[in-house]
C-alpha cells in the first residue's frame, strides 16, 4: 500500500465496469443525491454486493456511500444498504446525515464510518461529537480553508479526507427541477441528469446533477500536493460521480504520479499533467475554499500553466 489513499465515487455497476480504476486505492459506491439515479448502487443490493466483490477482486478498498439528505421514507433502504455493506465486505461507509450516523452506530457498530462533506464538519468540537458516534475519518465542510483544516487536525488528530480534484458539491435539494424538462426535451428521468448541464451567470457556472449542485469549475490541487502531504493529509478524493470513465482514469493517473513525486523537492510539475487537467475541465479550474477565498478562485503558484480562466490570480504564498 502506498503512503496515501486516492479514491473516487461511482454510482452504478455500469460505470464501475466501464472504468479503469488502476490509479485508485478505494472507491465509494453509490450516488448520494437521488434514489432515481440510473441503477444507483444504493437502491440495488445485489448490484452493491457485486460492486464490492469486483473491487475486492481488483485489490481496491470498497466503500459504500449513503444519501446526503434522506427523508423518513429512505430509512428502510438505508438500513438495507448498511446491512449489505457490513456483510459483503465494505471497508467503510460514508455518511453525510446525522440520523444515518446514529443508525450505523446503533445497528452496525463494527462498520467504520467516514463522515462526508454534507455532514457540516466545521470545527474540532464537531469532530469530537461525531467521533462519539463512531466516525473514524472526516471530510471537512468544503468551505473550510487548509489553515482551518490544519487547526482541526492539530487539535484532535483526526484523519481528514480532502477533495483534490473534480467538481465540488455546493448543495443538495429534495427536488429535481430537471423533471420540468422531460417533456420539452423528450428526455426522461433518469437520463436527464446525466446530460452535461451547467447553470451560468457570466463567468460563474455550476453543474446541475438534478438534486445536487456542483461547482462548474473543477477543484484542482495538483500543484499544492506537497502542502497537503506536509500538513499530514493522506486521504485524497477525486470527485468523478458525474464524469466519464476517461475523466476518472486520466485524472487519477495524473494524481497518482504527482502524489508519488510530491514528497520530492523540488516538486516538478509535468506539462502533460496540465494538458490532461485542461482537457477535462470544461469550465476551468479552481481551488475551492482551500485558500480562504471564494470557492471558484484559483490561487495557483503557476497560474499560467493552467491556462484558465477569468478568476485566476497569482498566489501570494
Amino acid at each position: 500500500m502506498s503512503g496515501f489513499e486516492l479514491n473516487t465515487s461511482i454510482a452504478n455497476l455500469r460505470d464501475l465496469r466501464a472504468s479503469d480504476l488502476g490509479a485508485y486505492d478505494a472507491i465509494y459506491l453509490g450516488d448520494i443525491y437521488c434514489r432515481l439515479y440510473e441503477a444507483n448502487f444504493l437502491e440495488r443490493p445485489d448490484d452493491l454486493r457485486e460492486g464490492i466483490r469486483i473491487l475486492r477482486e481488483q485489490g481496491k478498498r470498497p466503500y459504500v456511500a449513503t444519501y446526503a439528505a434522506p427523508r423518513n421514507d429512505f430509512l428502510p433502504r438505508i438500513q438495507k444498504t448498511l446491512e449489505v455493506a457490513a456483510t459483503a465486505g465494505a471497508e467503510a461507509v460514508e455518511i453525510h446525515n446525522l440520523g444515518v450516523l446514529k443508525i450505523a452506530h446503533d445497528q452496525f457498530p463494527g462498520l467504520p464510518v467516514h463522515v462526508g462533506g454534507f455532514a457540516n464538519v466545521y470545527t474540532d468540537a464537531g469532530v469530537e461529537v461525531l467521533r462519539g458516534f463512531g466516525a473514524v475519518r472526516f471530510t471537512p465542510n468544503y468551505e473550510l480553508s487548509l489553515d482551518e483544516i490544519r487547526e482541526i487536525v492539530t487539535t484532535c488528530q483526526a484523519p481528514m479526507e480532502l477533495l483534490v480534484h473534480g467538481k465540488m458539491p455546493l448543495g443538495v435539494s429534495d427536488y429535481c427541477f430537471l423533471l420540468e424538462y422531460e417533456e420539452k426535451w423528450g428526455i426522461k428521468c433518469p437520463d436527464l441528469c446525466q446530460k452535461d448541464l451547467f447553470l451560468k451567470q457570466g463567468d460563474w457556472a455550476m453543474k446541475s446533477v438534478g438534486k445536487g449542485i456542483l461547482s462548474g469549475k473543477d477543484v484542482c490541487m495538483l500543484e499544492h500536493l506537497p502542502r497537503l502531504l506536509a500538513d499530514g493529509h493522506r486521504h485524497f478524493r477525486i470527485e468523478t460521480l458525474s464524469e466519464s470513465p476517461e475523466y476518472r482514469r486520466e485524472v487519477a493517473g495524473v494524481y497518482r504520479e504527482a502524489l508519488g513525486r510530491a514528497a520530492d523537492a523540488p516538486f516538478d510539475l509535468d506539462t502533460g499533467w496540465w494538458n490532461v487537467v485542461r482537457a477535462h475541465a470544461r469550465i476551468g479550474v479552481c481551488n475551492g475554499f482551500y485558500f480562504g477565498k471564494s470557492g471558484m478562485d484559483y490561487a495557483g503558484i503557476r497560474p499560467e500553466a493552467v491556462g484558465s480562466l477569468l478568476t485566476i490570480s497569482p498566489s501570494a504564498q
Partner: protein
Amino acid sequence: MTTLLAPAGSPEAVQAALDAGADAVYVGLKGWSRGGARGELTWDELVTSRRRAAAAGRDLQVALNIIPKPDDRARLFERIPLLLDLGIRTLIVNDVGILGTLRREFPALRVTASIGCGAQTASDVSFFRDLGAHAVVLPGTIGPEEVRGMAAVGGIAVEVMLHMVEEFILLGKCWMPSYVHLKPSPLPDDAPARSLPEGAERGLRQTGSMKRGGVGACFKICQTPWDLYQGDRWVDARLFPSRQISRRLDVAAYVESGVEVLKLQGRSLPPEELGPLVRRYRAALDGRSGEGAVADAPMALPVSWTVVGR
C-alpha cells in the same frame, strides 16, 4: 401544550409578537446569528427585549446559529454567562460541536438544534436527543403525519417551522453563495465591554457563508436568473424554484401529531407585518381558524414540481 414561537428582529418587533399572542419569541444576537444584520439585535436591544418578554411573562430565546471559527467560538462562549445573567434560558444553535459543548459546560441552558441542523427524519431527531438537545426544529415541508413518528421519538421536543420560505437547496446544505463570494468581515463591536478584553482582536465572520454568518445576505443567488446550458448549447433561462410555506390550516393536525412548538420564520419582518402574522397563527392554535383569516401566500412552485422518488 403546544406553544407558538415567533421571530423578532427588533425590540419593537418583540413587542408586536408578544401583543399578538406569541408564547415565546426568538431573536438573533448581532454577529452571532444566521440571517444577518437586518434581523439581529444589539446587546442593548436584547436587554430591552428581554425586559419586555419578562414583563409579559413570556420566554425570550436567542439564536446563536452560526458556526464561528475557534477563536470566535471562545468569544461566543464568553457571552453565555452574560446571557444567563440576563435571564435567557434557551439558545438555538446549528452546529453539533457547539451544541455538545454548551450542554456540557452550561447545564442550566436549554439548547435547541436549529432548522439549519437539517433534521428531516426520526433518526435525526434521535441523534439530537442523544446529543442532549432539548428541542429540534423541523421544516414545514414535513407534513403532520410524517411528523407524528418523529415526535414519538420522545425525550426531545419537536418544533416545526410552519411559516417559512422553502428554497431549492436544503437549509444547512448550501454553499453556493460562498462559491462566488467569500469575504471576512469584522464582528460587531457593540457587545458588552466585559465580554471582550481590552486590546483583544475582534473576530471575523465570513460574509457569504450561510453556516458561518451571512451578514445580511447570502446573495440570494438562487433568486436571480440563471442560463441553463446543455453542453455548450443554451437551453433555458430560469430561477431556482422556491415557495412560501404557510401551514396555518394544518395547525390542528400538527398539534394532534405531538408537535410541542409551532415556529414562524421572519426575523426581518417589520412589527406591522409580524403582528398580523403571529395573530393569525395564534388564532389557528386557539382553534379560531376563521378569525383574522387572510388567504395564505400561494405556493410558487410549478405544478409539475413534485417530490419524486424520494
